[in-house]
């Protein structure tokens, strides 16, 4: 069964004057448990597509089914709920809350999901263990290295067992060695059955995925298995 199904997604920015067509009819399907790399030059619409797939933004037109559920045209609170339950984001610059401890950062999606405190803490510790930094639960993000921060971000993304993991250039701010380790972690997660969508313009990174989807000028130019 497909976890992601889009039909003719378009996204146009600017309503009067100059209209920018960021996406022009995207038909994309991603199967459950697949590892897909979304590639393309800057300005190709990668980020816009990722925002729509992650329910941060709504398409101008077209249909989008996430986990079998149509999400286009949903209200703000409904989208927030879907982001909370079905999407795990990993950003290039980690986007951890600097004033909250590592454990609290990881707990935050659980808090928004209404998980009780004890269970939240327990789950956060499990997740930190899984990403390999169990001993850092009570420190602030500032004391961690970039690779460790990205691991925390991954732990946070996994908190609610999301249907898809959306990683936007997750190694962009890391040196090649740490970057490789983080990618290894993604592969490991994929091995455990997680659906991973990796946005990148690094050809090597993209080659680690099962399938590459290449975007160019807002349309899918090429989709090939690795």
């Amino acid at each position, binding site marked *: 069964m497909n976890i992601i199904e889009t039909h003719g997604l378009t996204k146009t920015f600017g309503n009067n004057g100059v209209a920018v067509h960021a996406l022009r009819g995207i038909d994309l399907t991603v199967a459950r448990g697949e590892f897909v790399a979304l590639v393309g030059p800057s300005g190709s619409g990668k980020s816009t597509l990722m925002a729509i797939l992650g329910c941060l933004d709504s398409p101008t037109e077209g249909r989008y089914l996430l986990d079998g559920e149509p999400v286009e045209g949903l209200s703000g609170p409904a989208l927030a*709920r879907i982001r*909370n339950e079905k999407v795990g*984001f990993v950003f290039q610059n980690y986007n951890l809350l600097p004033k909250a401890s590592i454990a609290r950062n990881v707990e935050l999606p659980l808090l*928004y*999901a209404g998980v*009780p405190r004890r269970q939240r803490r327990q789950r956060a510790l499990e997740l930190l263990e899984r990403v390999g930094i169990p001993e850092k639960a009570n420190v602030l993000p500032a004391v961690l290295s970039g690779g460790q921060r990205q691991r925390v971000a991954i732990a946070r993304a996994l908190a609610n067992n999301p249907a898809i993991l959306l990683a936007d250039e997750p190694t962009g701010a890391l040196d090649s060695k740490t970057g490789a380790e983080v990618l290894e972690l993604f592969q490991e997660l994929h091995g455990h059955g997680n659906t991973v969508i990796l946005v990148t313009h690094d050809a090597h990174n993209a080659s680690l995925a099962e399938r590459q989807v290449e975007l160019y000028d807002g349309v899918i130019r090429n989709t090939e298995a690795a």
Partner: protein
Amino acid sequence: MLSGAFRERTLAAWVEIRENLARSILQTLGVTLGVASVLGGFSISDSQRRHSDDAWAKRGGFDKLNVQPSAAIKDGTTPSALQNANLGLRRDDASDGERLGAKVVDAVSVEKFARLRVRSPFGDQERQITGIAADYLPLNGYEIERGRAFSAEDISKATAVCVLGAEASSVFFPGGDAVGQVIRVGDIPVTVVGVLKEKIFHWRESEGNVFAWRNRIVALPAPLVARRMQGDAYHRVDRVVFKIPNMDVMQDFTKGLTSALKTSHRLQEDFRIDDIAARVRKRRSQGEVYNIIFMLAGIVSLIGGGMVNVNIQLATLKERVREVGVKMAIGASGREVFKEFMTEAMLLSGLGAVLGFAVGVAFSKIITAVLEIPLYMDPKSFLWAFLLAGLFGFVFALYPAFKASRQSPMEALRYE
């Protein structure tokens, strides 16, 4: 409250406040000053009122109606025979008034003044003599220290007895107990049957006793003064006081009394009725003005502080756009973001209010110390100040919180 979300929000808000201490202090400043102003203002006016209430309580309360004789004859006019025949205020007027207001009058006192020589083995002075009847002593807040007050029989039979104020007692009997001793008032020997407790009241601690003159009293039964010392067979009196605890009936009673007295005084208004309570209330209502001014000053600083808050919150919102974006990306709804901002603002208001309490208490202490009056703080003032701070804190937090909650997560994440 579910899943401790409220607790988490409060905790996060606390961290935010602590991490930005300077900014947070600036934000609480308006609330602090507003609360301090409301609390301080209320406390000072409460203290003053309490102090003046105290003075009135020691004077036997202010729920009194005074009736005194006054000249019915205007200057420069020849009095008519009718006017000349008038006797002024008499003892009967007191009993008429009491009958008239049987339901509303709590106590009546009658006074008859004279100025006579008072002699004892230890002192010889000319003194004001107060002839008293009925409830004079309790009505004027006098209490017996030793001996007894006059009995009804003492008054009706004009017995030669007297009660001395604390000062009078120590002047005429400096050695000790005056009760049972004899003094001469004018030509008449009278027995001291009671000594009054000393009355003390200081408007300011460093100032003298304003009730000192009350301790000089030499009280005799009024009929004794009228009949044997002044040879007045008409029982004329110098003042009649009615105690009327129910202020609402005061006006009606005054009207009834005026017309009753006029009737029995041959339609002459040779008396003056003075509503003490009305006078006190008037002064009180002037005091209320200060309360309103303090309250307004508090509200103005709360509004000022509130606007500063809105400004700071909107400015910091720019810094925090990204944070909001991240929270939204991981599933915070706009509602959640709104709540987080509100929690922070309300926590700030609460802290500001507590700080304001401290400043307000200090402020009240200083002012009452300068005024040298005892400090009295009504718990209600704290409640008022807190509620106002909460209200303004809430209202001014709404806009920034609303604005934060309405951000698009996409835009917020892209914000640099």
